[in-house]
């Protein structure tokens, strides 16, 4: 523990450096309402594991992978429980799509409704700005699979937006 601990920055510095990235990612992946709790859970989990973290770890990728697991937990819990109406009803009658006052852009609501793997890849790629290689590590898949899921997700989003425009 001494040798690895010696090279880690004080946790507070790590928290300050990544809090915006983690929150942005969580707002995109689980929505505003659950992002605060997920944020705290993410960094509490990170803190518990922190002293044993290997030296030279990619701290940003590591904490976003933890945030990703918290997001999965929330999506699974929603799968078991009724989803709040506001989360799903953004159909044509509520269009045109625009950023909500809270800044949680409408496109992230659409991303959250995509199949799990596409949702995960798009949030990690575009809200967390991870590389496809980092995403592959976080999702335990190949880089190629991550790229494919991202492309599929974007195609689905584009199709949805076209449908919305057609009905509007």
């Amino acid at each position, binding site marked *: 523990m001494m040798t690895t*601990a*010696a090279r*880690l*920055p*004080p*946790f*507070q*510095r790590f*928290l*300050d450096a990544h*809090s*915006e990235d*983690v*929150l*942005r*990612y969580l*707002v*995109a992946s689980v929505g505003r309402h659950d992002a*605060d709790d997920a*944020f*705290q859970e993410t*960094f*509490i989990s990170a*803190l*518990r594991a*922190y*002293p044993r973290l290997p030296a030279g770890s990619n701290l940003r990728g590591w904490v976003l992978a933890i945030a990703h697991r918290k997001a999965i937990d929330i999506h699974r819990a929603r799968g078991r429980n009724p989803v709040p109406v506001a989360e799903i009803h953004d159909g044509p009658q509520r269009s045109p799509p625009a*950023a909500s006052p809270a*800044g*949680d*852009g409408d*496109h*992230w609501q659409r*991303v959250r409704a995509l199949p799990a793997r596409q949702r995960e890849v*798009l949030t990690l790629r*575009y*809200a*967390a*700005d991870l590389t496809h290689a980092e995403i592959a590590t976080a999702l335990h898949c190949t880089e190629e699979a991550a790229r494919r899921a991202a492309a599929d997700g*974007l195609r689905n*989003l*584009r199709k949805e937006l076209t449908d919305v425009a057609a009905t509007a």
Partner: protein
Amino acid sequence: MSLPPPELRPGEAAALAARTAARAADQGIAEVAYTTVDSPVGRLVAVATPRGLARLAYELENGGLDEILDDVALRLSPSIVEAPARLDPVRRELEEYFDGHRQDFDVALDWSLSREGFRRRVLQECALIPFGATRTYKDMAIAAGSPSAFRAAGGALGSNPIPIVVPCHRVLASSGGLGGYTGGLERKRLLLSIEGGSLAL
């Protein structure tokens, strides 16, 4: 097609981070908590573990906050969070001391940043020197059980991780001179004057 990341409100992430840090300290998940305390002898960095106050550092004399925390991360644990509320008792006692309303500190101390053996014994003896009194380096060497080791006693006091609360400023040279001080002699003089010593030094 572009997917711009969600926008955050200004200060939103920082406020959440502060709440998380406070929770980590309250629940004992963080092994070390710190805060900064303004005082008449300059800004101090106070660092505590669940056992007690482990470090009170003169911020500027020790290379600034980052350097002080890096040192604590290396020697104690990197599980460090900023948790001002966790250090409120220390802050309050320091304020009372500098306002002239407190002579003894009651906060628990964590000695783990001072090397076990002679050094720690010297510092623990030093913690017993009453407000307003002074001792010599030789007195401290004797008290710690090595009467001839007054130079080493000076070294031990110079490495005091908890100055002010462990009052190494009350230890002077046998010649009557001020000796040295971890925070510089100006601060030593100021602390002694707070304690009412009419020092012709």
